[in-house]
C-alpha cells in the first residue's frame, strides 16, 4: 500500500453547536504523519461531529481544520477525498444496490481516471482502468477477509462483514489520512485481533484517526489518545497516561472495568 | 421511379366491389361528443351499402380515434408525436384509404395535411371552421366543409349591429385559430370591440379543468358593462361560461359560435335566448332531411352504440346538430362519388367532382367549391336558442330567425348575401 502522499492534520480551536446544543467546544488536537491516534469519549461526546468537521461536512462556528501539506482550508468532502482523506461511517453506509465488489471499487472513484469525454467515447483508458480496479478491489476484499461475499448485495451480508467491506472501500482510495468511526463494532474477538494487525500495518504508511468504544482494542493499538466529553477535550496523551487519568476514568471508562 | 401514372396503377382503396375511406376523429377524450358526426356519416354509408352501394361498390368507412390530437394516456401513440398523425399513417399505409372523409379538429387536421398531400391522399370535408382548408394552391386535395370562423363572425357582427345598436360588445374566445379567426370576423364585420374585452382562454382549459381565467374574463366584462358577449368555445366550455356568468349575476345577450352552441351538447338552461349561427334548419322547421335521417338511424343496426343518447338519453329521439352535420357530409360524399360513374373512381376524379358538384345538403346555404375556394359552406342561418315547453321535445332547441346568410369570402369587402330558406331535395339514390 505504497502512498506517495503524506498528510498530517491539525484541529485548532474548533467549536460546533446545533441550536443550543454544544457538540464541540474549542477542541484542538493533531495527528502527525503516520501516527495512529485514538479519539474516545462517552456517547454523544462529539467524536463523529469532529470527523464531520474534518471531512468538510460541517463548517465549524469557530476554529479551523488544517492539513499543513495541502495548504488549503475549507475543502469540500469530495475535494478532501481526492486529496487523500478517507473515512468510514459509524453505521454501515454501503451503496445498497451495488454488489460488495462494486462497493469496494467505488472507493477508488477519487483516483481513477476519465471524465465525461472519456466515458462517452469509451476510450481505452476507461476500459483498462475498470479492469485493473476490479482486480485491485478483489484483492482488497481478500485482505479484510470478505472475499466470499464479493457478489452479494449489502442488504444480505452480516453486520460484521459489512463493516469490513466499509474499511476495504476506504482503503481503495489509497488514503494518506484514514478516519475510522467505530470500524470494529460487530467483529468478534478473534477478528478484532486480525483487524488490529491490519491497522498497525496501515499506520506505517498513513495517518490514522480512530474512534472506538472497545478499549481492549484501542489502547494497545494507538500511539496517542484524545478524550472528548461533552464536546471538550478532557485529556490527551499516551494510552497509558489516559487510562490512568482520574477524569477519564470517571467520565468514560468507569472504575473497576 | 416514384409514383407512376396511367391506368396500370390501381387506385389505392378501390376494388371492384369496395371503396375504402377513412377519418381521424375524437371518439374518446374531451371532444368525444363530436364522435356523433362521423357516426352519422357512417349511418349514411351503411344505408347506401344496404341499397347496392355507389355504382356497385360498397363504401367501407374506417374511423380512427385520435383523442382530438391530445396526447392522453393510452391514446394512440406510435409515430411522430401526434395521435392524429399516427392514425393517419395507419389509414394511408395500412388501411390504404382512397380518401379521408370528415376528419375532425383544427389542430388535429393541421398536423397531417402535409403528410396527406405528400402521399397524394384527398382530404375531403374536414370538420372545422378554420380557413386552413382553403389553400387550393398549396393543398389541391384538401377541402373543408364548414363555414369559416371569419365568415361566421361577419354574419354575427351584422346581427349585433342591426339588433343591438350601440351595445358594448365583449368576446371570449378560445386562444387558438378558432378564437382568433372568430374575432377577426367580428372586426371584419365592422364591430367595435374595446381591446380589453378581447379576452381569450386556453383551449386546454377543457382538458385541465382550470377555469379561473374565465371567471376573471367575465368579471372584467361585467365591470365594463358589456351588454353583448360573443363566445367562441366548445360546448362544455360554453356551458361553463354561462354558469360562471350566472354566478356573478351577469346576463348579457349571448352570441355563440355554431361549434359551441348545439343545445343538446351544451345542456344548460341558461343557454335559452342566446343567438347562434346554425347551418341547418333543425329541428323545428319541417325538413325532409330530418325525416330521412331518422329513418336511416332506425334502420341501422349499429346506431344504438353510436347514438346512445338518441335511444335512451334524456333527449331520446332528438336529432342533434352533430348528427345532421355528419349525415350531410355523408350525403355529399356519396353525391360526389355518384357523379364519377363506375370507372371514374380515381383520386384525380374525385377532386374534380368536388369542384363541379352543387351539393344537395340540409343546409340552407349552398355547398360548392371552385379552383380558388375550398372552404365549403359560406354561412348559415341565424337562430335563437329557445326553451321548449313541449315535453316530447328536447328542452332547448335552435329556432331559425329568418333567412340564410352567407358571404363569398372572409374579408370585410365581400358582402353578405341573404337568401330565402330553400332546402335542396334529397337525391333520389339516397331515398
Amino acid at each position, binding site marked *: 500500500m505504497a502512498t506517495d502522499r503524506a498528510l498530517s492534520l491539525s484541529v485548532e480551536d474548533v467549536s460546533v453547536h446545533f441550536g443550543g446544543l454544544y457538540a464541540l467546544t474549542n477542541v484542538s488536537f493533531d495527528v502527525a504523519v503516520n501516527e495512529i491516534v485514538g479519539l474516545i469519549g462517552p456517547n454523544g461526546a462529539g467524536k463523529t461531529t469532529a470527523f464531520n468537521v474534518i471531512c468538510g461536512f460541517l463548517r465549524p462556528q469557530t476554529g479551523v481544520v488544517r492539513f499543513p501539506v495541502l495548504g488549503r482550508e475549507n475543502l469540500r468532502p469530495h475535494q478532501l477525498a*481526492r486529496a487523500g482523506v478517507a473515512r468510514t461511517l459509524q453505521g454501515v453506509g454501503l451503496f445498497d444496490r451495488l454488489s460488495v465488489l462494486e462497493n469496494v471499487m467505488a472507493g477508488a472513484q477519487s483516483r481513477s481516471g476519465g471524465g465525461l469525454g472519456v466515458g462517452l467515447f469509451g476510450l481505452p483508458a476507461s476500459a483498462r482502468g475498470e479492469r485493473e480496479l476490479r482486480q485491485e478491489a478483489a484483492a482488497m476484499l481478500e485482505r479484510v477477509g470478505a472475499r466470499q461475499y464479493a457478489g452479494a448485495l449489502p442488504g444480505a451480508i452480516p453486520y460484521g462483514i459489512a463493516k469490513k467491506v466499509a474499511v476495504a472501500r476506504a482503503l481503495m482510495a489509497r488514503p494518506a489520512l484514514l478516519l475510522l468511526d467505530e470500524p470494529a463494532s460487530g467483529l468478534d474477538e478473534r477478528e478484532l485481533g486480525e483487524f488490529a494487525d491490519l491497522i498497525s500495518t496501515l499506520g506505517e504508511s498513513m495517518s490514522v484517526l480512530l474512534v472506538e468504544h472497545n478499549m481492549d482494542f484501542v489502547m494497545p493499538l494507538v500511539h496517542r489518545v484524545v478524550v472528548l466529553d461533552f464536546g471538550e477535550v478532557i485529556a490527551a496523551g499516551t494510552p497509558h497516561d489516559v487510562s490512568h487519568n482520574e477524569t477519564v476514568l470517571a467520565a468514560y471508562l468507569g472504575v473497576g472495568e | 421511379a416514384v409514383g407512376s401514372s396511367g391506368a396500370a396503377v*390501381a387506385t389505392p382503396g378501390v376494388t371492384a366491389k369496395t371503396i375504402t375511406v377513412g377519418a381521424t376523429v375524437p371518439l374518446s377524450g374531451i371532444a368525444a361528443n363530436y364522435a356523433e358526426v362521423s357516426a352519422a356519416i357512417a349511418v349514411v354509408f351503411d344505408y347506401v351499402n344496404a341499397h347496392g352501394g355507389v355504382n356497385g361498390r360498397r363504401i367501407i368507412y374506417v374511423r380512427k*380515434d385520435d383523442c382530438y390530437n391530445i*396526447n392522453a394516456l*393510452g391514446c394512440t401513440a406510435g409515430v411522430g408525436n401526434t395521435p392524429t398523425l399516427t392514425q393517419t399513417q395507419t389509414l394511408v399505409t395500412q388501411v390504404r384509404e382512397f380518401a379521408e372523409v370528415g376528419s375532425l379538429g383544427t389542430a388535429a387536421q393541421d398536423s397531417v395535411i402535409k403528410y396527406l398531400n405528400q402521399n397524394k391522399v384527398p382530404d375531403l370535408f374536414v370538420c372545422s371552421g378554420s380557413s386552413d382548408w382553403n389553400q387550393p394552391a398549396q393543398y389541391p386535395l384538401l377541402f373543408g366543409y364548414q363555414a369559416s370562423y371569419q365568415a361566421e363572425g361577419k354574419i354575427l357582427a351584422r346581427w349585433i349591429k342591426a339588433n343591438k345598436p350601440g351595445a358594448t360588445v365583449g368576446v371570449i374566445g378560445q386562444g387558438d385559430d378558432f378564437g382568433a379567426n372568430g374575432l377577426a370576423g367580428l372586426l371584419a364585420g365592422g364591430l367595435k370591440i374595446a381591446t380589453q374585452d378581447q379576452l381569450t382562454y386556453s383551449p386546454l382549459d377543457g382538458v385541465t379543468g382550470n377555469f379561473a381565467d374565465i371567471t376573471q374574463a367575465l368579471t372584467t366584462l361585467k365591470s365594463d358593462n358589456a351588454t353583448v358577449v360573443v363566445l367562441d368555445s366548445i360546448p362544455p366550455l360554453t356551458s361553463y361560461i354561462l354558469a360562471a356568468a350566472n354566478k356573478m349575476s351577469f346576463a348579457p345577450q349571448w352570441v355563440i359560435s355554431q361549434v359551441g352552441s348545439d343545445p343538446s351538447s351544451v345542456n344548460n338552461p341558461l343557454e335559452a335566448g342566446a343567438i347562434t349561427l346554425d347551418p341547418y334548419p333543425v329541428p323545428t322547421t319541417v325538413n325532409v332531411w330530418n325525416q330521412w335521417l331518422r329513418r336511416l338511424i332506425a334502420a341501422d343496426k349499429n346506431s344504438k352504440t*353510436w347514438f346512445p343518447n338518441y335511444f335512451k338519453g334524456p333527449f331520446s329521439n332528438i336529432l342533434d346538430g352533430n348528427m345532421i352535420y355528419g349525415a350531410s357530409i355523408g350525403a355529399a360524399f356519396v353525391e360526389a362519388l355518384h357523379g364519377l360513374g363506375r370507372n371514374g373512381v380515381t383520386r384525380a376524379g374525385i377532386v374534380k367532382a368536388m369542384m363541379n358538384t352543387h351539393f344537395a345538403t340540409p343546409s340552407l346555404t349552398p355547398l360548392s367549391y371552385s379552383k380558388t375556394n375550398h372552404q365549403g359552406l359560406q354561412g348559415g342561418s341565424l337562430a335563437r336558442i329557445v326553451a321548449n315547453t313541449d315535453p316530447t321535445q328536447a328542452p332547448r332547441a335552435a329556432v331559425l330567425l329568418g333567412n340564410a346568410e352567407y358571404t363569398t369570402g372572409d374579408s370585410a369587402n365581400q358582402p353578405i348575401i341573404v337568401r330565402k330558406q330553400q332546402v335542396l331535395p334529397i337525391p333520389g339514390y339516397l331515398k
Partner: protein
Amino acid sequence: MSSLRQRFPSAWRLVATLLLLVLAVALSFVLSPLDDSKLAGGAAISIVILGLSWLIGWSGQVSLGNAGFMAIGAYVTAIWANHHATSPIVWSLVLSTVIGGLSGLVLALPATRLRGPYLAGMTLAFSFAVTPLALNWRGFTGGSGGLFINFLSTPAWFGGLFSGPDALIRANAQWPADVTLVVAAVAFYFMANLFHSRVGRAMRLVRDNEVAAELSGVNLQRARTLAFVISAAYAGLGGSVMTLLSGSVTPQTYGLTLSILLLTLMVLGGIGTLSGAILGGLIYSYSDNLVSLVNKVSGINPTSTLGANLKGIVFGVLLILTMMLAPRGLVGAGAWLRRAARR
C-alpha cells in the same frame, strides 16, 4: 469472444451497435410501411426513454419534466428548419441536443437541490408550464397552431430503390425510419459507454448514498447536474427527431401527459437498461395494436363508448399487471426467465 469483449469493451459495443443497426435497417426493408413508421416513432421515443432512464435509474433523480426538454428540442428544430430550410438535418439534431442539454443545466440549478417527492413536484411543475409558455410566446412558437416544417424529404436515390404501386408510400415511410434508426444507434452507443464508465458509477453512488459518494470523491452537485444535462440532451434530441418525423410541433404535444407516459414506458421496459429503453419504445409504438387485439378478442365495437375508451383500460391494466408480476419491467422479467430456465 468474451475475452475480447473484456479487453476492448468499447470496440465491442461499437461492433454490436453496428450489427444491430444493420439488422434493423434490413428489417425496415421487409416490414410494411406502417411498421416502418412505427419503428421510427419507437426508435425516437426510445432515445428519450434512455435519457430518462439514465436520470432516474442511474442518478436516482425522478423527473416528470422530460417532455418539456423534448418540447425545447422540437421547437429548436422547427425554428431552425424554418430559417435554414436547406441546412443538413445533422445540424438540427446537434443544435437540439445542445440546447436541450443547456436547458437541462438551467433546470438543474434548482432541481438538484431537491429530493424525492419534492423533485417530482418541481419537474412536474416544469412540464405543466411548457404548454402555456409555448402558447404564450407566439412569436417563437406559433402559438396554439404550432410550427410546421417540411418532412424529412426522401432523396431520389432512396426512392429509386422501390418500385411497384406502393413505391411512393414505401419510400416515404422507410426513409425517416432508417434515418431515425441511425440517430438512435449513435445515441445508444454513447449511453452504453457512459453506463460502463467512471461517470456512470458516480451516478449510482450518488443514487445509493450521498454521504458515502461524497466521501468517495464524487462532487454531488456536479454529478446530479450532469445527470440532468445528459438526460435533457437526449430528450432534446428525441424531440428533434419527433419533429422531423411529424413535420410539426404543437404545444399540446409535449405536456404533462407525455412526461408521465415516458415514465411509465421506461418502467414497463425496465429501468436503467439499454434494452429496457428499446422495449419501452416498441411498447409505445405497438400499444394500439394491443388495444385492437383486445378489441377483436372481446368483440367490443371500437367505435362505441366503451370501445373508444378501451385503450385507457387496456393500457392501465397492462401497467398494473406488469408492476405486479414483473416489478423490474419486462427486461427484469426476461432475466428472471433466463435464470429460471438455466436452473
